[in-house]
């Protein structure tokens, strides 16, 4: 867990509801209204999104210390991916109003929230570069295969 995650997790520990889950527990689905945030106290969570035809694409794995649903409760948007436990997990849940009330007490905690959101944005840019690189590599491999076949 990074120092940023620790600052937030420690501040919120008094107000969270702790639950333990086995593998495969669906925490929220794409399109659900956000009710609050989940702090991953232990274990890992898969974040996935799906196309209309049912194709699922893994987005990333949220590690211990991650805070899921943060951007949704700030922006009041529906979840844009589904979250399912990848390993047995212990998760702390805090509803939106309680979360914002606690964060508002301290600019230092707010700053940690902004750092986490910034890291999330940067992770997305990394993901885009990776997808682009993978697509280019696939295209190159297909072209090489075609030229060998000829």
């Amino acid at each position, binding site marked *: 867990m990074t120092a940023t995650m620790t600052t937030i997790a420690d501040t919120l520990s008094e107000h969270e509801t702790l639950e333990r889950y086995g593998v495969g527990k669906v925490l929220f689905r794409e399109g659900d209204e956000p009710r609050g945030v989940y702090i991953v106290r232990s274990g890992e969570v898969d974040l996935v999104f799906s196309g209309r035809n049912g194709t699922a694409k893994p987005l990333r794995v949220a590690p211990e210390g991650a805070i899921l649903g943060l951007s949704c409760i700030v922006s009041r*948007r529906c979840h844009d991916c589904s979250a399912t436990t990848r390993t047995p997990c212990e998760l702390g849940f805090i509803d939106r109003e309680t979360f914002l009330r606690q964060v508002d007490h301290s600019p230092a905690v707010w700053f940690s929230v902004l750092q986490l959101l910034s890291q999330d944005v940067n992770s997305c840019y990394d993901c885009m570069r990776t997808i682009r690189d993978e697509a280019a590599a696939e295209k190159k491999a297909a072209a090489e295969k075609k030229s060998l076949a000829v």
Partner: protein
Amino acid sequence: MPSPYNLDIHNTCTECTVRAERLFCNMSASSIAAVDSVKFTGVYPKGSLLFVEGEMPRGIFILCSGRAKLTTSSTEGKTLIVKIAEPGEVLGASATILGKPYEVSAETIEPAQLNFVKRDDFLKLLGTDTETCMHTAQQLSEKYHSAQREIRSLGLSQTTSEKLAKLLLDWCARGGEETNKGIRLKVLLTHEEIAQMIGTTRETVTRLLSDFKRKKIIDVKGSSVFVMAKDSLESMVSI
């Protein structure tokens, strides 16, 4: 009174007539006055580089008017446009907050007014005003959701025509004007830039647009694209 590039310049944030429509700027009078006291207003022509990927952050740029493209490079050196920033957006916030190099480059695609706030001043504002923190958090969240949409489009689309169809549909939803010819889109991007947005080549974009035109799905007049058969585009999109 003449102004550079005929832009409607807003010199003072507190007197800005469009502030209420902007996610970041729509703060209380005292919070926006604090931003006003530390900002530097600048007017930039098309093609101005505001910051470059890998550069250490100097501060944030609030896009008051005009648009800018945010780009990144793949490991092979290919340019990918991650977003077209619209008026009201804050550029460079994540790098400034983290104190890490800018992850993207930002370049204006039309004449623009931007307010620059130095990193130290912005961090001081965040440290003292929770309303500024909330509005910054909303900006970052919107950027995150926008990036997620792009990842979805890049990662789930089966074909390049699907990616292009999705892009045109997104533009229709965000700024399309209904006309009797169809939905009018003002497209400031070249075919090369559209290719950079959807991860393909300029030649493929030119070919696909001609194809869409031939099938009477779109029509192109100068920098305007008219979407005449939106349902045809929707049927191409499976994500």
